């Protein structure tokens, strides 16, 4: 694969199931539209990919660590690269992803819907593509 910084977003666009847009935020591991665990994981991957793409383009080392990526996302927001601060979203999704994957916990998005998260991340991906 070519070291194209927008590669991850391209892959995400190609592979993210379309049902993510409409998935319900029910406290259950299954929904008629698919699996909530998968939805959370894909959203988290896409959000991190947006941050990583800009970080790679600006030679910022995220050390491939989730916490570091969240910090970089906040810095990029403060610099005006992103119009939204992805840090809370990344932390929320990372925690939800681990809770549901490892612990079998119901997904707790602290009152936010997956639709809302999806829109925010899609915006960030578009901004990242422009910036990268």
């Amino acid at each position, binding site marked *: 694969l070519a070291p194209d910084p927008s*590669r991850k977003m391209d892959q995400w666009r190609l592979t993210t199931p379309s049902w993510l847009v409409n998935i319900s935020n029910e406290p259950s591991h299954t929904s008629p539209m698919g699996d909530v665990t*998968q939805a959370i994981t894909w959203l988290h991957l896409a959000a991190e990919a947006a941050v990583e793409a800009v970080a790679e383009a600006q030679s910022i080392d995220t050390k491939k660590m989730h916490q570091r990526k969240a910090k970089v996302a906040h810095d990029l927001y403060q610099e005006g690269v992103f119009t939204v601060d992805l840090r809370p979203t990344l*932390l929320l999704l990372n925690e939800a992803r681990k809770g549901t994957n490892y612990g079998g916990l119901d997904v707790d998005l602290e009152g936010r819907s997956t639709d809302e998260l999806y829109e925010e991340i899609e915006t960030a991906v578009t901004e990242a593509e422009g910036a990268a």
Partner: protein
Amino acid sequence: VVSSAAPRQSGPACRRWDDDEVWIDRLRRDARAAGSDQADELGAITTEVLSRARAAGALSFAVTGSVAVNRRTWISDLDFYVVGPRPRLPFYDEEIDLYAVTPAEFRRRLEDGDDYLHWTLRFGLILHDRGPLRSALITVTRENLWPDPRPKAVQARRAAAMAIAILRTGDFDAAVEQSRIALSLAARWWLLAAGIFPRARSDLPDQLRAGEFAWLGEALRATIFERPDATELARALERLQSTLDVATLAAS
């Protein structure tokens, strides 16, 4: 395979947890270990998280995961188990994994044989308890309770499918992380079913070494300590999926 989960081993050290001296000794040892087994920076975070949890009304607080058994690796988070409200935490450079359950949820999980709860009782460093953990220890020891391995098989199967999907996107780092989740869940399922209590993630390959699931241990080891080969990882995931398909079908 799953129906062979009957073999049980002794509860957490078979101690008499209703004896105040035994209990106080455990708390002292755990507090000492939490102080000595953590770097200053991690210890400071633990102290602050504990303080915030207590202020929020936590009934119990324990350090879990690799730190609790002094087996921290470069991919380790700082793991905490809280019975009570989830405290609000500031942003830390270290990745925090705080698992908070209500007292009712805690009791339900004890009855359901939740393996993480059992792990916390057995290996966790208990730094604060107003009843739930001690009471659970007494129950587990008295009734010789053993975690139910079956949910691990279901979770592992789902995680393996996800890992394969991510691998197909070409995002190898993310695929390795998801594979690590799937493989460690499967390792815990198998060990629990075989009557062996799984320790920290980095110990699982050694715990699996002698049995028919040594290949699973080796695949997991590669995701923790090495950079696995993509083809071998894909093969291991497919083999895992087949194994789990049979196991979960048998269980259902």
